[in-house]
């Protein structure tokens, strides 16, 4: 059977790329891109992290003119890309441990500085386990010292490399192998976990952003923006995991987009503790539309529909939408600003995404 090719609107997604002027096209569409993470690695079919890492690294390579060193935490990305004696990395790449990638990256940055190699930039990367949980102290230390590193978290919301266990980034109600769909409150409990981007903002570092692999232009521009700054920077990228989430391999990008459209994954930028830009939700969907394609949430629909839990998740999405002003024309609440008095950076509002997204639509009828 032949495959259906989707055609998205111009200026938004990959297919529309060819209608854009060359300088506005994505790094990925450039045949001369660095291809930092080569094909032939051993990631699962439809792996969001493999896409995310390639997008991020290639964009960072372009932004730095190829003067880049990367440090990797233990996890899927490290395991599937470097089975001795092979490697998929075409950039200088160092793996040490699960919990220390931010600190190792700090060491790399310190060495480059002292060796007068300031032209070479440092990018640390890890999954949500290595970033949000075990490596969190090292990440905070790196932020607090202001080390010249961009740290990228590929968030697939669980410990996928060890068999889909819960992490501090696992959403409420999600089934994992350590938060199973049994008992009266199946799946992960509500009220746990942490928002690494918000905590990163509290460190008042120069740049914090969230992104997904569903919006390549946005992701690449954030990497470019981050590499244009110095000091500690943080990028949190949502990367669906077909294996862990129980979603179709061909639906990875769509699921990531639904996470954004539902409001469960707010996409924004922040500088020195202030939110400076958000990606407005142009086509709002009920959380159910995001939850349904994922087996990790199946227990919310079978054998009986758990309206109470789904409503709880919708409340979280609604709060994100209010808090970050994700619907067009609304300002975000002041509660997401972590700026100290007198340290606001004037003239930095409204830069970026809000200006690039035409065709804003209202809330979906399902709401």
């Amino acid at each position, binding site marked *: 059977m032949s495959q259906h090719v989707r055609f998205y609107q111009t200026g938004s997604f990959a297919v529309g790329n060819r209608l854009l002027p060359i300088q506005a096209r994505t790094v990925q569409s450039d045949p001369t891109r660095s291809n930092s993470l080569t094909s032939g690695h051993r990631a699962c079919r439809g792996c969001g992290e493999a896409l995310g890492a390639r997008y991020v690294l290639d964009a960072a390579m372009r932004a730095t003119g190829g003067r880049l*060193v990367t440090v990797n935490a233990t996890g899927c990305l490290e395991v599937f890309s470097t089975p001795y004696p092979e490697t998929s990395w075409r950039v200088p790449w160092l793996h040490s441990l699960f919990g*220390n990638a931010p600190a190792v990256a700090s*060491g790399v940055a*310190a060495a480059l500085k002292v060796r007068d190699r300031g032209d070479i930039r440092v990018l640390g990367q890890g999954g949500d386990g290595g970033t949000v949980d075990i490596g969190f102290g090292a990440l*905070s230390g790196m932020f607090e010292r202001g080390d010249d590193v961009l740290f990228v978290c590929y968030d697939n919301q669980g410990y996928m490399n060890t068999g889909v266990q819960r992490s501090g980034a696992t959403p409420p109600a999600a089934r994992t192998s350590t938060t199973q769909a049994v008992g009266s409150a199946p799946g992960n409990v509500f009220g746990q976990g942490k928002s690494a981007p918000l905590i990163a903002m509290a460190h008042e570092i120069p740049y914090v952003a969230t992104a997904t692999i569903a919006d390549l232009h946005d992701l690449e521009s954030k990497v470019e923006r981050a590499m244009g700054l110095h000091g500690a920077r943080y990028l949190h990228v949502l990367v669906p995991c077909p294996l862990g989430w129980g979603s179709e391999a061909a639906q990875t990008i769509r699921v990531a987009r639904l996470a954004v459209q539902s409001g469960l994954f707010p996409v924004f930028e922040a500088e020195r503790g202030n939110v400076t830009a958000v990606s407005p939700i142009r086509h709002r969907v009920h959380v159910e539309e995001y939850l349904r394609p994922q087996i990790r949430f199946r227990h919310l629909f079978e054998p009986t529909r758990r309206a109470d839990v789904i409503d709880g998740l919708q409340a979280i999405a609604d709060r994100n939408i209010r808090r970050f002003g994700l619907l067009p024309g609304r300002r975000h609440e002041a509660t997401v600003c972590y700026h100290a008095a007198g340290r606001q950076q004037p003239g930095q509002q409204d830069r970026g995404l809000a200006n690039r997204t035409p065709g804003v639509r209202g809330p979906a009828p399902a709401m």
Partner: protein
Amino acid sequence: MLSPIEGSRAVAETVARCRPQVVCAYPISPQTHIVENLSALVKSGRLAPCEFVNVESEFAAMSVAIGASATGARAYTATASQGLLYMAEALYNAAGLGLPIVMTVANRAIGAPINIWNDHSDAMSQRDCGWIQLYAEDNQAAADLHVIGFRLAEELSTPVMVCMDGFVLTHAVEAVDVPDQTTVDRFLPAYQPRQVLDPDAPVTIGAMVGPEAFTEVRYLAHANQLRVLDRMPELAHQFATTFDRDIDVLVSPYRCDDADTVVVALGSVLGTLKDTVDGLRADGMPVGVLGLTMFRPFPVAAIRTAVGPAKRIVVLERAFAAGVGGIVSADLAGVLPAGEREMYTVVAGLGGRPVTRDSLREMLAAAFSGRLAPLTFLDLDERLLRAEEVRS
């Protein structure tokens, strides 16, 4: 030139003259004075170019050192006790990645119960992590072993731990000839990394290795450690000619040649032991002392030669393996031909308890007369033990 100086400061000044480019540390007693001095040297510009990274934990300290070393910078840190244990995972990594980091361990006991005083429990707990372990007898040795440590580490691409007794050495003021810059520069060339993160020649460092090659990687690491045993005496000879003083790098035998009893020990207790042995010799007892400067790799050949035909080996341990007994003595028993030789393990000086000449004399007299148990805890307070037994 010999001048009175605190051990920590002597080490800091010496390390500074080894021109480390990245120094990272987290404070822990009794290591603190070393990194305080180094931070001042960096801040004042006396040690330059150098980045001093104040980290949030020992785990981060070793991680920063790993990143820096892999990026071609000479990296140094210092720790002790719980801090060394907190680093443990990264210690194995530094060794496995072949990164020539040099670290001072200001030896201290491990809790619980918490205790800040000296013994060797910390370093001994990491004896198999792949680091070279050197133990200083006094502050001159502590300083000198760092210079030779950097040279060795970088020649063989392997990390080196210089152990010095906490407080007993770190906080003691004694006369030390701190090596001068010109001489250190003559002995220690700039760091030439075996592999380095460089966009002009990208490499993957730290790949995942499966069962088909893991044993081979480990074997090569072992073989590299054995090369240390061959290389170290040559380096010691070069050191002696460059700095005009001797340095013991494998073992330091004292009056062992005609001894029928040899006491084996590591670190600062060697001074007390030598004094005790002098006294016993005066009483006609043929006793010698064998100091182990290098514990990892284990200098088997040097030990066999030094011990010679001695009939009785007493190992004075500043740490022990719960449930078994001696750590150093277990290694010794494995490499010394048994024959008629008697082996004794004496655990002494735990958690900073003084090891006195009187106790050592009494213990050795018991060994001579066959009254010493194979495993003895020196100066064990029986009254306190009984009191605690009653309480439990």
